[in-house]
Protein backbone atom coordinates (compact mmCIF):
# COMPACT_ATOMS: atom_id res chain seq x y z
CA UNK A 1 0.00 0.00 0.00
CA UNK A 2 1.26 3.49 -0.76
CA UNK A 3 1.78 5.66 2.33
CA UNK A 4 -0.92 8.07 1.15
CA UNK A 5 -3.40 5.25 0.76
CA UNK A 6 -2.44 3.85 4.13
CA UNK A 7 -3.07 7.23 5.72
CA UNK A 8 -6.48 7.58 4.05
CA UNK A 9 -7.39 4.02 5.02
CA UNK A 10 -6.45 4.62 8.66
CA UNK A 11 -8.56 7.79 8.71
CA UNK A 12 -11.56 5.91 7.39
CA UNK A 13 -11.15 2.99 9.79
CA UNK A 14 -10.97 5.44 12.70
CA UNK A 15 -14.35 6.87 11.68
CA UNK A 16 -16.24 3.62 12.34
CA UNK A 17 -16.62 1.22 15.30
CA UNK A 18 -15.69 -1.63 12.95
CA UNK A 19 -12.89 -1.72 10.36
CA UNK A 20 -14.96 -3.38 7.65
CA UNK A 21 -17.31 -0.39 7.59
CA UNK A 22 -14.44 1.52 6.02
CA UNK A 23 -14.31 -0.92 3.11
CA UNK A 24 -16.65 0.83 0.68
CA UNK A 25 -15.43 4.36 1.47
CA UNK A 26 -11.88 3.08 1.02
CA UNK A 27 -12.69 1.53 -2.36
CA UNK A 28 -14.33 4.82 -3.36
CA UNK A 29 -11.13 6.63 -2.42
CA UNK A 30 -9.04 4.15 -4.43
CA UNK A 31 -11.38 4.54 -7.39
CA UNK A 32 -11.04 8.30 -7.23
CA UNK A 33 -7.29 7.86 -7.54
CA UNK A 34 -7.03 4.99 -10.04
CA UNK A 35 -10.20 5.56 -12.05
CA UNK A 36 -11.55 2.15 -11.05
CA UNK A 37 -11.25 -0.51 -8.36
CA UNK A 38 -7.96 -2.09 -9.37
CA UNK A 39 -6.45 -5.37 -8.24
CA UNK A 40 -4.12 -3.40 -5.98
CA UNK A 41 -7.10 -1.65 -4.41
CA UNK A 42 -8.75 -5.01 -3.72
CA UNK A 43 -5.59 -6.29 -2.00
CA UNK A 44 -5.10 -3.05 -0.08
CA UNK A 45 -8.74 -3.08 1.07
CA UNK A 46 -8.42 -6.68 2.24
CA UNK A 47 -5.32 -5.77 4.23
CA UNK A 48 -7.03 -2.73 5.72
CA UNK A 49 -10.20 -4.48 6.83
CA UNK A 50 -8.92 -7.95 7.65
CA UNK A 51 -11.06 -9.88 5.17
CA UNK A 52 -9.91 -11.86 2.14
CA UNK A 53 -9.42 -10.33 -1.33
CA UNK A 54 -12.14 -12.69 -2.60
CA UNK A 55 -14.60 -11.26 -0.10
CA UNK A 56 -13.63 -7.72 -1.08
CA UNK A 57 -14.24 -8.60 -4.74
CA UNK A 58 -17.63 -10.08 -3.96
CA UNK A 59 -18.65 -6.99 -2.01
CA UNK A 60 -17.30 -4.57 -4.61
CA UNK A 61 -19.20 -6.43 -7.34
CA UNK A 62 -22.47 -5.71 -5.53
CA UNK A 63 -22.30 -1.94 -6.00
CA UNK A 64 -22.94 -0.32 -9.35
CA UNK A 65 -20.80 2.76 -8.68
CA UNK A 66 -17.68 0.70 -8.05
CA UNK A 67 -16.14 -0.10 -11.42
CA UNK A 68 -14.18 -3.32 -11.64
CA UNK A 69 -12.62 -2.39 -14.97
CA UNK A 70 -11.11 0.89 -16.17
CA UNK A 71 -13.75 3.35 -17.31
CA UNK A 72 -13.51 6.52 -19.37
CA UNK A 73 -12.53 9.93 -18.07
CA UNK A 74 -16.16 10.83 -18.69
CA UNK A 75 -18.80 8.48 -17.35
CA UNK A 76 -22.22 9.28 -18.78
CA UNK A 77 -25.15 7.59 -17.07
CA UNK A 78 -28.55 8.06 -18.67
CA UNK A 79 -31.64 7.26 -16.61
CA UNK A 80 -33.90 4.64 -18.22
CA UNK A 81 -36.62 4.15 -15.61
CA UNK A 82 -40.32 4.92 -15.97
CA UNK A 83 -40.63 8.65 -15.23
CA UNK A 84 -37.78 9.46 -17.60
CA UNK A 85 -39.10 7.01 -20.18
CA UNK A 86 -42.44 8.85 -20.15
CA UNK A 87 -40.63 12.07 -21.01
CA UNK A 88 -38.22 11.07 -23.73
CA UNK A 89 -35.55 8.82 -22.19
CA UNK A 90 -35.80 6.36 -25.10
CA UNK A 91 -35.02 9.12 -27.59
CA UNK A 92 -32.20 10.42 -25.41
CA UNK A 93 -30.79 6.90 -25.10
CA UNK A 94 -30.85 6.29 -28.86
CA UNK A 95 -29.30 9.69 -29.48
CA UNK A 96 -26.56 9.22 -26.88
CA UNK A 97 -25.68 5.75 -28.19
CA UNK A 98 -25.48 7.09 -31.73
CA UNK A 99 -23.39 10.17 -30.87
CA UNK A 100 -20.97 8.26 -28.67
CA UNK A 101 -20.94 5.18 -30.87
CA UNK A 102 -21.24 3.09 -27.73
CA UNK A 103 -23.64 0.45 -26.48
CA UNK A 104 -24.82 0.27 -22.89
CA UNK A 105 -21.85 -0.38 -20.60
CA UNK A 106 -19.15 0.26 -23.21
CA UNK A 107 -16.05 2.42 -23.00
CA UNK A 108 -14.65 4.11 -26.09
CA UNK A 109 -11.46 2.71 -27.59
CA UNK A 110 -9.56 5.89 -26.71
CA UNK A 111 -10.63 5.46 -23.06
CA UNK A 112 -12.31 8.86 -22.94
CA UNK A 113 -15.99 7.97 -22.59
CA UNK A 114 -18.04 5.33 -20.80
CA UNK A 115 -21.76 5.13 -21.49
CA UNK A 116 -24.28 3.45 -19.20
CA UNK A 117 -28.04 3.22 -18.89
CA UNK A 118 -28.92 3.37 -15.22
CA UNK A 119 -31.96 3.14 -12.98
CA UNK A 120 -34.02 5.94 -11.45
CA UNK A 121 -31.81 8.85 -10.35
CA UNK A 122 -34.51 10.53 -8.22
CA UNK A 123 -34.80 13.60 -10.43
CA UNK A 124 -38.06 12.57 -12.12
CA UNK A 125 -39.60 16.05 -12.18
CA UNK A 126 -36.88 17.15 -14.57
CA UNK A 127 -36.87 14.18 -16.89
CA UNK A 128 -35.13 12.95 -18.85
CA UNK A 129 -32.00 13.25 -16.76
CA UNK A 130 -28.47 11.96 -16.77
CA UNK A 131 -25.32 12.11 -14.68
CA UNK A 132 -21.91 13.01 -16.01
CA UNK A 133 -19.24 12.01 -13.49
CA UNK A 134 -22.06 12.05 -10.89
CA UNK A 135 -23.11 15.58 -11.75
CA UNK A 136 -26.78 15.92 -12.65
CA UNK A 137 -28.08 17.25 -15.95
CA UNK A 138 -31.80 17.78 -16.15
CA UNK A 139 -34.44 18.01 -18.89
CA UNK A 140 -31.89 16.81 -21.40
CA UNK A 141 -32.97 17.12 -25.05
CA UNK A 142 -30.86 15.59 -27.82
CA UNK A 143 -29.68 19.14 -28.63
CA UNK A 144 -28.62 19.69 -25.00
CA UNK A 145 -26.77 16.41 -25.14
CA UNK A 146 -24.83 17.52 -28.21
CA UNK A 147 -23.90 20.83 -26.61
CA UNK A 148 -22.72 19.09 -23.45
CA UNK A 149 -20.85 16.46 -25.38
CA UNK A 150 -18.87 19.13 -27.21
CA UNK A 151 -17.90 20.61 -23.86
CA UNK A 152 -16.97 17.21 -22.42
CA UNK A 153 -14.86 16.33 -25.44
CA UNK A 154 -12.80 19.47 -24.83
CA UNK A 155 -12.43 18.77 -21.09
CA UNK A 156 -10.01 16.63 -19.17
CA UNK A 157 -11.63 16.09 -15.77
CA UNK A 158 -9.13 15.61 -12.93
CA UNK A 159 -11.42 13.09 -11.23
CA UNK A 160 -14.10 10.91 -12.80
CA UNK A 161 -15.77 9.38 -9.75
CA UNK A 162 -15.10 11.59 -6.72
CA UNK A 163 -15.03 9.78 -3.38
CA UNK A 164 -16.46 12.77 -1.55
Amino acid at each position, binding site marked *: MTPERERRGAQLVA*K*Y*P*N*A*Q*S*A*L*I*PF*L*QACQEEDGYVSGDAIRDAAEL*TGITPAEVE*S*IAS*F*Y*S*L*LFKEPVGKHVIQVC*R*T*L*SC*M*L*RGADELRDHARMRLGLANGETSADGRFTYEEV*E*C*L*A*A*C*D*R*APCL*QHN*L*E*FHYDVTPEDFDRQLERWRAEEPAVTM*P*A*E
Partner: protein
Amino acid sequence: MAAFEPVLTKGIGELDLADIDVYKQHGGFSALEKALKEMTPEAIVGEVSASNLRGRGGAGFPTGKKWSFLPKDGRPRYLVCNCDEAEPGTFKDHMLLRLTPFAIIEGLIISAYAINASHVVMYIRGEFLEGYRIFKRALAAASAAGYLGKDIMGSGFTMELILHRGAGAYICGEETAMLESIEGKRGEPRLKPPFPANAGLYGMPTVVNNVETLCCVPHIINRGAGWFSAIGPPKCPGPKIISVSGNVANPGNYEIPMGISARELLEEYAGGLLPGRRLKAIQPGGGSSAAIFEEDLNVGIDFDSLAAKKTMLGSGGFVVMDDRTCLVRASQTLVRFFEHESCGQCTPCREGGQWVARMVGRLEAGEGSVNDLRVLGVINNTITGTNLCPLGDSIMPFLSSVLRRFPEEFAAHVQQAGCPFQKAPEFSAA
Protein backbone atom coordinates in the same frame (compact mmCIF):
# COMPACT_ATOMS: atom_id res chain seq x y z
CA MET B 1 -60.49 22.09 9.41
CA ALA B 2 -58.06 24.99 9.22
CA ALA B 3 -56.45 25.73 5.88
CA PHE B 4 -53.44 23.49 5.28
CA GLU B 5 -50.11 25.13 5.78
CA PRO B 6 -47.06 23.37 4.33
CA VAL B 7 -44.24 22.98 6.84
CA LEU B 8 -41.79 20.48 5.36
CA THR B 9 -41.27 22.43 2.16
CA LYS B 10 -41.80 25.89 3.62
CA GLY B 11 -39.22 28.32 2.27
CA ILE B 12 -37.86 25.86 -0.29
CA GLY B 13 -37.34 27.67 -3.56
CA GLU B 14 -37.48 31.06 -1.85
CA LEU B 15 -34.85 30.90 0.88
CA ASP B 16 -31.34 29.50 1.05
CA LEU B 17 -32.15 27.06 3.83
CA ALA B 18 -28.77 25.37 3.38
CA ASP B 19 -27.37 28.44 5.16
CA ILE B 20 -27.56 27.86 8.91
CA ASP B 21 -28.31 31.52 9.68
CA VAL B 22 -31.22 31.61 7.25
CA TYR B 23 -32.53 28.35 8.68
CA LYS B 24 -32.32 29.75 12.22
CA GLN B 25 -33.93 33.08 11.27
CA HIS B 26 -36.95 31.11 10.07
CA GLY B 27 -37.47 29.12 13.22
CA GLY B 28 -34.81 26.48 12.68
CA PHE B 29 -33.45 24.69 15.77
CA SER B 30 -36.25 26.08 17.96
CA ALA B 31 -37.73 22.58 18.23
CA LEU B 32 -34.33 21.21 19.18
CA GLU B 33 -34.00 23.78 21.91
CA LYS B 34 -37.47 22.98 23.22
CA ALA B 35 -36.83 19.23 23.08
CA LEU B 36 -33.49 19.35 24.85
CA LYS B 37 -34.38 21.96 27.46
CA GLU B 38 -38.02 21.28 28.23
CA MET B 39 -38.74 17.66 27.34
CA THR B 40 -37.59 14.27 28.53
CA PRO B 41 -36.82 11.60 25.93
CA GLU B 42 -39.94 9.73 27.08
CA ALA B 43 -42.08 12.82 26.54
CA ILE B 44 -40.79 13.13 22.96
CA VAL B 45 -41.49 9.47 22.21
CA GLY B 46 -44.94 10.00 23.72
CA GLU B 47 -45.59 13.07 21.57
CA VAL B 48 -44.46 11.35 18.37
CA SER B 49 -46.56 8.28 19.21
CA ALA B 50 -49.60 10.46 19.91
CA SER B 51 -49.13 12.28 16.60
CA ASN B 52 -49.68 9.00 14.70
CA LEU B 53 -46.73 9.81 12.46
CA ARG B 54 -46.14 6.89 10.13
CA GLY B 55 -42.84 6.29 8.35
CA ARG B 56 -42.44 8.13 5.07
CA GLY B 57 -39.96 5.72 3.49
CA GLY B 58 -42.53 3.31 2.12
CA ALA B 59 -43.76 0.89 4.76
CA GLY B 60 -45.78 3.41 6.77
CA PHE B 61 -44.92 1.89 10.13
CA PRO B 62 -45.84 4.06 13.15
CA THR B 63 -42.66 5.91 14.12
CA GLY B 64 -43.39 6.17 17.85
CA LYS B 65 -44.04 2.44 18.00
CA LYS B 66 -40.78 1.70 16.17
CA TRP B 67 -38.92 3.81 18.73
CA SER B 68 -40.63 2.13 21.67
CA PHE B 69 -39.49 -1.36 20.58
CA LEU B 70 -35.91 -0.65 21.67
CA PRO B 71 -35.00 -2.89 24.61
CA LYS B 72 -33.95 -1.15 27.81
CA ASP B 73 -30.85 -3.23 28.40
CA GLY B 74 -28.13 -0.59 28.48
CA ARG B 75 -26.49 -1.52 25.18
CA PRO B 76 -25.43 1.36 22.90
CA ARG B 77 -28.14 2.35 20.46
CA TYR B 78 -27.93 3.48 16.86
CA LEU B 79 -30.12 5.75 14.83
CA VAL B 80 -29.71 5.45 11.06
CA CYS B 81 -31.14 8.02 8.67
CA ASN B 82 -32.17 6.40 5.41
CA CYS B 83 -31.33 8.80 2.59
CA ASP B 84 -30.97 6.10 -0.05
CA GLU B 85 -33.98 7.26 -2.02
CA ALA B 86 -34.17 5.21 -5.21
CA GLU B 87 -37.78 4.09 -5.57
CA PRO B 88 -38.75 4.84 -9.18
CA GLY B 89 -40.67 8.11 -9.32
CA THR B 90 -39.64 9.35 -5.86
CA PHE B 91 -37.46 12.44 -5.43
CA LYS B 92 -38.55 14.12 -2.19
CA ASP B 93 -35.67 13.10 0.09
CA HIS B 94 -33.22 14.13 -2.62
CA MET B 95 -34.85 17.59 -2.54
CA LEU B 96 -34.85 17.82 1.26
CA LEU B 97 -31.18 16.80 1.34
CA ARG B 98 -30.10 19.48 -1.11
CA LEU B 99 -32.41 22.30 -0.16
CA THR B 100 -33.07 21.99 3.57
CA PRO B 101 -30.31 19.88 5.13
CA PHE B 102 -30.61 21.48 8.58
CA ALA B 103 -34.20 20.27 8.89
CA ILE B 104 -32.84 16.73 8.57
CA ILE B 105 -30.09 17.45 11.08
CA GLU B 106 -32.55 18.95 13.56
CA GLY B 107 -34.90 15.98 13.18
CA LEU B 108 -31.99 13.59 13.62
CA ILE B 109 -30.72 15.17 16.82
CA ILE B 110 -34.18 15.31 18.43
CA SER B 111 -34.91 11.73 17.43
CA ALA B 112 -31.52 10.50 18.65
CA TYR B 113 -32.13 12.25 21.98
CA ALA B 114 -35.61 10.73 22.19
CA ILE B 115 -34.34 7.18 21.78
CA ASN B 116 -31.07 7.85 23.62
CA ALA B 117 -28.89 6.97 20.65
CA SER B 118 -25.46 8.54 20.89
CA HIS B 119 -24.43 7.10 17.55
CA VAL B 120 -26.09 8.26 14.36
CA VAL B 121 -25.32 7.19 10.81
CA MET B 122 -26.51 9.24 7.86
CA TYR B 123 -26.60 6.98 4.81
CA ILE B 124 -26.71 8.97 1.58
CA ARG B 125 -27.29 7.37 -1.80
CA GLY B 126 -24.05 7.21 -3.83
CA GLU B 127 -25.54 9.06 -6.79
CA PHE B 128 -26.39 12.06 -4.57
CA LEU B 129 -22.86 13.45 -4.59
CA GLU B 130 -24.03 17.05 -4.71
CA GLY B 131 -26.45 16.39 -1.83
CA TYR B 132 -23.69 14.64 0.12
CA ARG B 133 -21.46 17.69 -0.23
CA ILE B 134 -24.23 20.06 0.82
CA PHE B 135 -25.05 17.89 3.81
CA LYS B 136 -21.40 17.63 4.79
CA ARG B 137 -21.09 21.43 4.81
CA ALA B 138 -24.31 21.67 6.83
CA LEU B 139 -22.94 19.20 9.36
CA ALA B 140 -19.79 21.25 9.79
CA ALA B 141 -21.89 24.38 10.37
CA ALA B 142 -24.16 22.59 12.83
CA SER B 143 -21.15 21.23 14.63
CA ALA B 144 -19.51 24.66 14.84
CA ALA B 145 -22.76 26.02 16.27
CA GLY B 146 -22.70 23.40 19.03
CA TYR B 147 -25.59 21.24 17.81
CA LEU B 148 -23.48 18.12 17.47
CA GLY B 149 -20.93 16.45 19.66
CA LYS B 150 -20.63 16.57 23.44
CA ASP B 151 -23.23 17.99 25.81
CA ILE B 152 -25.44 19.49 23.11
CA MET B 153 -26.83 22.88 24.22
CA GLY B 154 -25.94 22.09 27.81
CA SER B 155 -28.38 19.18 27.93
CA GLY B 156 -25.84 16.54 28.81
CA PHE B 157 -26.79 14.67 25.63
CA THR B 158 -23.86 13.65 23.45
CA MET B 159 -24.22 12.53 19.87
CA GLU B 160 -21.72 11.65 17.15
CA LEU B 161 -22.77 11.47 13.54
CA ILE B 162 -21.11 9.35 10.88
CA LEU B 163 -21.74 10.44 7.31
CA HIS B 164 -21.75 7.40 5.03
CA ARG B 165 -21.99 7.41 1.25
CA GLY B 166 -23.62 4.52 -0.61
CA ALA B 167 -22.10 3.07 -3.75
CA GLY B 168 -25.06 2.30 -5.98
CA ALA B 169 -27.67 -0.30 -4.97
CA TYR B 170 -31.44 0.26 -4.69
CA ILE B 171 -31.78 -2.62 -2.24
CA CYS B 172 -29.72 -0.74 0.37
CA GLY B 173 -32.84 1.36 0.97
CA GLU B 174 -34.30 -1.73 2.68
CA GLU B 175 -33.39 -1.20 6.32
CA THR B 176 -31.53 -4.42 7.06
CA ALA B 177 -29.69 -4.25 3.71
CA MET B 178 -28.68 -0.74 4.70
CA LEU B 179 -27.23 -2.03 7.98
CA GLU B 180 -25.26 -4.69 6.08
CA SER B 181 -24.01 -2.02 3.71
CA ILE B 182 -22.86 0.24 6.56
CA GLU B 183 -21.03 -2.77 8.01
CA GLY B 184 -19.10 -2.95 4.73
CA LYS B 185 -20.86 -5.98 3.28
CA ARG B 186 -23.01 -6.76 0.27
CA GLY B 187 -26.37 -5.07 0.71
CA GLU B 188 -28.38 -8.23 1.26
CA PRO B 189 -31.48 -7.95 3.46
CA ARG B 190 -31.42 -9.97 6.68
CA LEU B 191 -33.87 -12.60 7.78
CA LYS B 192 -36.18 -11.11 10.40
CA PRO B 193 -36.54 -11.63 13.34
CA PRO B 194 -34.38 -10.50 14.98
CA PHE B 195 -35.53 -7.01 14.09
CA PRO B 196 -33.12 -4.06 14.06
CA ALA B 197 -34.63 -2.82 17.34
CA ASN B 198 -32.94 -5.80 19.01
CA ALA B 199 -30.07 -6.67 16.71
CA GLY B 200 -29.37 -3.90 14.22
CA LEU B 201 -26.14 -2.14 13.31
CA TYR B 202 -23.16 -4.07 14.73
CA GLY B 203 -25.73 -6.23 16.51
CA MET B 204 -26.90 -3.30 18.64
CA PRO B 205 -30.42 -1.92 19.09
CA THR B 206 -31.08 0.25 16.03
CA VAL B 207 -33.78 2.44 14.56
CA VAL B 208 -33.79 3.25 10.85
CA ASN B 209 -35.89 6.28 9.89
CA ASN B 210 -36.52 7.92 6.55
CA VAL B 211 -35.43 11.51 5.84
CA GLU B 212 -38.97 12.90 5.52
CA THR B 213 -40.07 11.09 8.69
CA LEU B 214 -37.27 12.76 10.63
CA CYS B 215 -38.17 16.12 9.09
CA CYS B 216 -41.68 15.80 10.56
CA VAL B 217 -40.35 15.44 14.11
CA PRO B 218 -39.31 19.08 14.79
CA HIS B 219 -42.77 20.28 13.70
CA ILE B 220 -44.47 17.79 16.02
CA ILE B 221 -42.30 19.08 18.87
CA ASN B 222 -43.08 22.72 18.05
CA ARG B 223 -46.77 22.42 17.32
CA GLY B 224 -47.76 19.34 19.26
CA ALA B 225 -49.14 15.92 18.42
CA GLY B 226 -52.67 17.34 18.25
CA TRP B 227 -51.77 19.67 15.41
CA PHE B 228 -50.18 16.84 13.41
CA SER B 229 -52.90 14.26 13.98
CA ALA B 230 -55.60 16.75 12.96
CA ILE B 231 -54.21 16.94 9.40
CA GLY B 232 -56.00 14.34 7.29
CA PRO B 233 -57.12 10.84 8.32
CA PRO B 234 -56.58 10.23 12.07
CA LYS B 235 -54.82 6.88 11.51
CA CYS B 236 -52.34 8.22 8.96
CA PRO B 237 -52.25 11.97 9.34
CA GLY B 238 -49.81 14.74 8.67
CA PRO B 239 -48.23 16.69 5.88
CA LYS B 240 -46.80 14.49 3.13
CA ILE B 241 -44.56 15.30 0.22
CA ILE B 242 -45.70 13.66 -2.98
CA SER B 243 -43.31 13.47 -5.94
CA VAL B 244 -45.37 13.90 -9.08
CA SER B 245 -43.80 12.93 -12.40
CA GLY B 246 -44.65 11.60 -15.83
CA ASN B 247 -47.25 13.03 -18.18
CA VAL B 248 -48.48 16.02 -16.18
CA ALA B 249 -48.32 19.76 -16.82
CA ASN B 250 -46.23 20.54 -13.72
CA PRO B 251 -44.11 17.70 -12.37
CA GLY B 252 -42.59 18.39 -8.96
CA ASN B 253 -42.72 17.80 -5.22
CA TYR B 254 -45.97 18.86 -3.59
CA GLU B 255 -46.63 18.96 0.12
CA ILE B 256 -50.23 17.94 0.71
CA PRO B 257 -52.38 17.27 3.72
CA MET B 258 -52.63 13.49 3.84
CA GLY B 259 -55.94 12.21 2.47
CA ILE B 260 -56.73 14.61 -0.37
CA SER B 261 -58.01 12.84 -3.48
CA ALA B 262 -55.80 11.66 -6.29
CA ARG B 263 -57.89 13.93 -8.51
CA GLU B 264 -57.10 17.00 -6.43
CA LEU B 265 -53.41 16.16 -6.41
CA LEU B 266 -53.37 15.62 -10.15
CA GLU B 267 -55.50 18.58 -11.15
CA GLU B 268 -55.04 21.25 -8.47
CA TYR B 269 -51.40 20.65 -7.57
CA ALA B 270 -49.78 19.17 -10.66
CA GLY B 271 -51.74 21.19 -13.22
CA GLY B 272 -53.49 18.17 -14.71
CA LEU B 273 -52.63 16.31 -17.86
CA LEU B 274 -51.16 17.91 -20.95
CA PRO B 275 -53.71 19.51 -23.30
CA GLY B 276 -55.79 16.99 -25.21
CA ARG B 277 -54.51 13.93 -23.36
CA ARG B 278 -56.50 11.33 -21.45
CA LEU B 279 -55.45 9.62 -18.27
CA LYS B 280 -54.46 6.00 -18.62
CA ALA B 281 -52.81 4.89 -15.37
CA ILE B 282 -51.15 6.27 -12.26
CA GLN B 283 -48.65 4.64 -9.95
CA PRO B 284 -49.53 6.27 -6.64
CA GLY B 285 -46.65 4.93 -4.54
CA GLY B 286 -43.55 4.53 -6.66
CA GLY B 287 -42.42 1.74 -8.95
CA SER B 288 -43.47 -0.95 -6.49
CA SER B 289 -47.13 0.04 -6.43
CA ALA B 290 -50.11 -1.29 -8.37
CA ALA B 291 -51.72 1.22 -10.71
CA ILE B 292 -54.91 3.17 -10.19
CA PHE B 293 -57.06 4.37 -13.08
CA GLU B 294 -59.53 7.04 -14.18
CA GLU B 295 -62.33 5.39 -12.17
CA ASP B 296 -60.20 5.49 -8.97
CA LEU B 297 -59.41 9.19 -8.86
CA ASN B 298 -61.52 9.86 -5.78
CA VAL B 299 -59.26 7.68 -3.66
CA GLY B 300 -57.53 9.47 -0.80
CA ILE B 301 -53.77 9.89 -0.97
CA ASP B 302 -52.88 8.26 2.34
CA PHE B 303 -51.65 4.88 3.57
CA ASP B 304 -55.01 3.33 4.45
CA SER B 305 -57.15 4.59 1.56
CA LEU B 306 -54.65 3.38 -1.03
CA ALA B 307 -54.21 0.05 0.77
CA ALA B 308 -57.99 -0.39 0.56
CA LYS B 309 -57.63 -0.01 -3.23
CA LYS B 310 -55.05 -2.84 -3.21
CA THR B 311 -52.19 -0.49 -3.89
CA MET B 312 -50.08 1.71 -1.59
CA LEU B 313 -48.84 5.16 -0.74
CA GLY B 314 -45.35 3.70 -0.50
CA SER B 315 -42.72 6.40 -0.72
CA GLY B 316 -45.09 8.89 -2.37
CA GLY B 317 -43.91 8.68 -5.97
CA PHE B 318 -46.97 9.55 -8.07
CA VAL B 319 -46.23 8.65 -11.69
CA VAL B 320 -48.83 9.67 -14.25
CA MET B 321 -49.23 7.95 -17.61
CA ASP B 322 -51.44 9.40 -20.33
CA ASP B 323 -52.99 7.73 -23.37
CA ARG B 324 -49.74 7.76 -25.35
CA THR B 325 -48.20 5.30 -22.90
CA CYS B 326 -47.70 1.69 -23.90
CA LEU B 327 -48.36 -0.24 -20.71
CA VAL B 328 -46.36 -3.22 -21.91
CA ARG B 329 -43.34 -0.94 -22.37
CA ALA B 330 -44.01 0.71 -18.99
CA SER B 331 -44.23 -2.72 -17.35
CA GLN B 332 -41.04 -3.81 -19.09
CA THR B 333 -39.21 -0.76 -17.75
CA LEU B 334 -40.29 -1.45 -14.17
CA VAL B 335 -39.78 -5.21 -14.24
CA ARG B 336 -36.30 -4.67 -15.65
CA PHE B 337 -35.64 -2.27 -12.79
CA PHE B 338 -36.44 -4.90 -10.16
CA GLU B 339 -34.60 -7.59 -12.11
CA HIS B 340 -31.54 -5.33 -12.14
CA GLU B 341 -31.81 -4.42 -8.45
CA SER B 342 -32.55 -7.87 -7.01
CA CYS B 343 -29.80 -8.82 -4.57
CA GLY B 344 -30.17 -12.44 -5.68
CA GLN B 345 -30.70 -14.10 -2.31
CA CYS B 346 -34.27 -15.32 -2.85
CA THR B 347 -35.06 -17.55 -5.80
CA PRO B 348 -38.55 -16.18 -6.63
CA CYS B 349 -37.17 -12.66 -6.86
CA ARG B 350 -33.90 -13.48 -8.63
CA GLU B 351 -35.25 -16.04 -11.12
CA GLY B 352 -38.80 -14.72 -11.27
CA GLY B 353 -37.64 -11.23 -12.05
CA GLN B 354 -35.53 -12.50 -14.93
CA TRP B 355 -38.30 -14.70 -16.34
CA VAL B 356 -40.87 -11.93 -16.19
CA ALA B 357 -38.46 -9.40 -17.69
CA ARG B 358 -37.79 -11.80 -20.57
CA MET B 359 -41.50 -12.44 -21.14
CA VAL B 360 -42.47 -8.77 -21.12
CA GLY B 361 -39.45 -7.98 -23.30
CA ARG B 362 -40.64 -10.60 -25.82
CA LEU B 363 -44.13 -9.12 -25.83
CA GLU B 364 -42.87 -5.60 -26.45
CA ALA B 365 -40.57 -6.86 -29.22
CA GLY B 366 -43.51 -8.60 -30.93
CA GLU B 367 -42.21 -12.08 -30.16
CA GLY B 368 -44.62 -12.90 -27.35
CA SER B 369 -47.16 -15.70 -27.34
CA VAL B 370 -50.63 -16.29 -25.93
CA ASN B 371 -48.94 -18.58 -23.44
CA ASP B 372 -46.80 -15.67 -22.18
CA LEU B 373 -50.00 -13.75 -21.48
CA ARG B 374 -51.44 -16.70 -19.58
CA VAL B 375 -48.29 -17.11 -17.49
CA LEU B 376 -48.09 -13.37 -16.74
CA GLY B 377 -51.65 -13.56 -15.49
CA VAL B 378 -50.87 -16.17 -12.83
CA ILE B 379 -47.18 -15.80 -11.99
CA ASN B 380 -47.92 -13.16 -9.36
CA ASN B 381 -48.91 -15.96 -6.97
CA THR B 382 -45.50 -17.59 -7.08
CA ILE B 383 -43.37 -14.45 -6.84
CA THR B 384 -45.23 -12.14 -4.46
CA GLY B 385 -45.01 -12.90 -0.76
CA THR B 386 -42.27 -15.49 -1.12
CA ASN B 387 -39.17 -13.38 -0.48
CA LEU B 388 -37.13 -12.10 2.45
CA CYS B 389 -37.79 -8.46 1.67
CA PRO B 390 -40.33 -6.37 -0.25
CA LEU B 391 -38.24 -6.11 -3.44
CA GLY B 392 -39.48 -9.42 -4.82
CA ASP B 393 -43.02 -8.42 -3.92
CA SER B 394 -42.59 -5.28 -6.03
CA ILE B 395 -41.96 -7.00 -9.35
CA MET B 396 -45.59 -7.87 -10.16
CA PRO B 397 -48.06 -5.34 -8.69
CA PHE B 398 -47.91 -2.78 -11.51
CA LEU B 399 -47.82 -5.36 -14.28
CA SER B 400 -50.68 -7.38 -12.80
CA SER B 401 -52.83 -4.29 -12.30
CA VAL B 402 -52.47 -2.98 -15.86
CA LEU B 403 -52.78 -6.46 -17.37
CA ARG B 404 -56.12 -6.85 -15.56
CA ARG B 405 -57.35 -3.41 -16.59
CA PHE B 406 -56.08 -3.37 -20.19
CA PRO B 407 -55.86 -7.05 -21.27
CA GLU B 408 -56.56 -6.04 -24.88
CA GLU B 409 -53.42 -3.92 -25.00
CA PHE B 410 -51.27 -6.86 -23.99
CA ALA B 411 -53.12 -9.16 -26.41
CA ALA B 412 -52.60 -6.65 -29.23
CA HIS B 413 -48.84 -7.03 -28.84
CA VAL B 414 -49.23 -10.73 -29.62
CA GLN B 415 -51.84 -10.38 -32.36
CA GLN B 416 -49.95 -7.66 -34.19
CA ALA B 417 -46.57 -9.21 -33.43
CA GLY B 418 -45.32 -5.86 -32.24
CA CYS B 419 -46.00 -2.78 -30.18
CA PRO B 420 -49.08 -0.95 -31.52
CA PHE B 421 -47.78 2.30 -30.07
CA GLN B 422 -44.73 2.34 -32.24
CA LYS B 423 -46.93 2.23 -35.31
CA ALA B 424 -49.78 4.40 -34.05
CA PRO B 425 -48.88 6.51 -31.04
CA GLU B 426 -52.42 7.87 -30.74
CA PHE B 427 -53.96 5.17 -28.58
CA SER B 428 -57.59 5.68 -27.59
CA ALA B 429 -58.25 4.28 -24.14
CA ALA B 430 -61.18 1.93 -23.50
